[in-house]
């Protein structure tokens, strides 16, 4: 009996494996740092559409936030006969992971397209068939800072709820040790301060002077709505209208955290769509954030264009598969000088 069951199970498993393989061993192999990232999932959906439209066969991998997993997946894909590697590298802290992938790809003479999570110029230059498609990590922070500064200049008195002449802010950081999070945290405040000071206003003031970091970070490194929500509701217990020290500005590293903060604000009667609103700024322009801005519950976000990112990757992949120059048909203004890095521009989004 047991043997029969085992037999049936193994046959099912084999059939399953064959089904997964789809017989497409060549084509593009795409490695995502994690499927759980909302922005990356959006890129994944759009990239799938673009590949289908261009009739490119592809295979997706979830590295699940683990560089070892990813490196092993890349190895396996190469042995399987991949024709192009599209890699959203997990470890961005050092060059080792990315250059390990380059070493493998060079041996097998397969083009590599890194995207989203940045690899260094040195890595990209070390292999002629390598490009990076991403954004300028600093740009989102600068743009958010500029957006906040401009918003405050136009709405200073309205924002300064207690009329002390200063704006108190809270800032939610997505994770420690991630460049995007570091730059956004730094420049959002610095650039806003520059604009304010130039206009003769005082600098922003972190709501809690006893916190030397001047930010609150998601300890799981997930940029999560839940973390922002819990920090926000905790902060609101001692910083509120009743104490005349209400937090007057909310800056978030991404839209997910902004959503969490808005949920906490609305439980104390703010940001429910009426006029009683604390300005909240995010980054990404997720569908949910766009909707919140439309409903007057959020102020602004920085659009990271998933569509354009996916299309650009698809074009480069097609170039790679057809043996053309990798950067054929790519807008030259997006390309960095001296290194094959394509920068998809961010844009401000304050609602239509």
């Amino acid at each position: 009996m047991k043997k029969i069951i085992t037999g049936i199970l193994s046959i099912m498993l084999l059939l399953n494996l064959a089904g997964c393989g789809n017989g497409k061993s060549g084509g593009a192999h795409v490695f995502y740092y994690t499927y759980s990232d909302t922005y990356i999932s959006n890129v994944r959906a759009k990239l799938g559409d673009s590949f289908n439209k261009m009739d490119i066969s592809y295979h997706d991998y979830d590295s699940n936030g683990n560089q070892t997993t990813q490196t092993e997946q890349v190895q396996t894909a190469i042995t399987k006969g991949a024709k192009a590697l599209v890699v959203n590298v997990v470890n961005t802290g050092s060059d080792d992971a990315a250059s390990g992938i380059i070493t493998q790809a060079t041996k097998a003479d397969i083009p590599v397209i890194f995207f989203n999570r940045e690899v260094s110029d040195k890595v990209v230059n070390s292999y002629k068939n390598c490009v990076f498609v991403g954004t300028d990590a600093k740009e989102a922070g600068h743009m958010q800072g500029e957006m906040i500064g401009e918003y405050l200049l136009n709405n200073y008195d309205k924002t300064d709820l207690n009329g002390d002449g200063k704006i108190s802010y809270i800032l939610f950081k997505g994770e420690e040790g991630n460049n995007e999070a570091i730059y956004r945290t730094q420049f959002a405040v610095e650039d806003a301060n520059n604009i304010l000071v130039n206009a003769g206003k005082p600098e922003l003031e972190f709501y809690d002077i006893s916190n030397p970091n001047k930010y609150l970070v998601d300890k799981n490194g997930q940029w999560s709505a839940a973390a922002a929500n819990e920090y926000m509701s905790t902060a609101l217990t001692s910083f509120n209208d009743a104490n005349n020290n209400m937090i007057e500005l909310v800056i978030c590293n991404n839209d997910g955290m902004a959503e969490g903060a808005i949920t906490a604000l609305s439980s104390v009667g703010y940001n429910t769509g009426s006029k009683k609103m604390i300005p909240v700024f995010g980054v990404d322009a997720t569908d949910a954030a766009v909707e919140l801005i439309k409903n007057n519950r959020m102020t602004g976000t920085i659009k990271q264009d998933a569509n354009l990112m996916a299309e650009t990757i698809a074009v480069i992949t097609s170039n790679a598969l057809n043996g053309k120059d990798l950067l054929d048909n790519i807008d030259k203004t997006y390309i960095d000088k001296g290194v094959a890095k394509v920068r998809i521009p961010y844009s401000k989004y304050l609602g239509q």
Partner: protein
Amino acid sequence: MDNNQNVSNANKRFKVNKNTIIEFLIDNSLYIFIIAAIIAIQIISPMFLSIPSIINIISLSAANLPLALGIAGCIILTGTDLSAGRIVGVVACVSASLLQSTGYANKMFPDLNTMSVYTVFIIALAIGGIVGLINGFCTAKFHLHPFIVTLSTQLIVYGFLLMYLMIGNNNGQSISGLDSSFTNLITGSILSIGETAIPNFVWFSIIITALMWFIWNKTKFGKNMFAVGSNPDAANVSGVNVTRTIIYVFTLAGILYGVTGFIEAARIGSNSAATGLNYELDAIAACVIGGVSFVGGIGKIRGVIIGVVLLRIIFVGLTFLGIDANMQYVIKGLIILIACAIDMRKYLVKK
């Protein structure tokens, strides 16, 4: 046997008499530490014990309590449950997707009218219950350690969650835009103290806790659970259906994760694949801090509540003090370690 018992009892009495004060201080060092910490935080940051802050601590605790109560049952069986967080995640996402407001631009199922909150609540309980049932069934029938079973279901549930998030026109985005019938039920308020509203889910959590207290202490099932936890063979000999008890405990735990997921969906308002991640670890920590022992057969509802509240006090307290996140890990780790060491010590003395 009897002789030994007497000798050890006598020893114990002797020891206690000799070192009563020291024993008392060590056994209660956790409580002493908490009280000292609360006083210190209160002095440095006077808003810590204000009414809004206390209600915040209560509501943060209430959100995690059902999950911890579920896991506590598994721990009493000398098991654990690693799938809890992911079950919360999948229930939160499914609940949210079925309860997005009609006309919300990025609705996952645009043609679906917003369902009745109560129907979705039943669905949430069912999803949690089914996964719990699978956990319990595999543990009991195949004699596998729950660590392995729930490790597997954790992965399976996460896989389904990722697939679920890609369907409809969602493309892996976070699910929000919840219908007001849902958010009002969970985060709305029927009672305020001063200016501060108490969110409704606090009441749900209290009802569930009372229910769980009744199940643990007053029902045959509860007694069987403790019997199986302390010694499954003895329980079996004395006529307890061990298999069925294990299955029930895990199913009940799954249902409680379902409740947590349902509440979480509305409480946070934005649900993604990261929802619920690592929740089980906090819940397990809360249980062991509160004296639910991995030795098996030991634990009280009161302990679970204390554990959950304590972790929340640490979170809120450290946030109030503006202590660096890196240091928060160290403090949390030390507290878990010390709490368990003290707990084990009590148990060894008893033995």
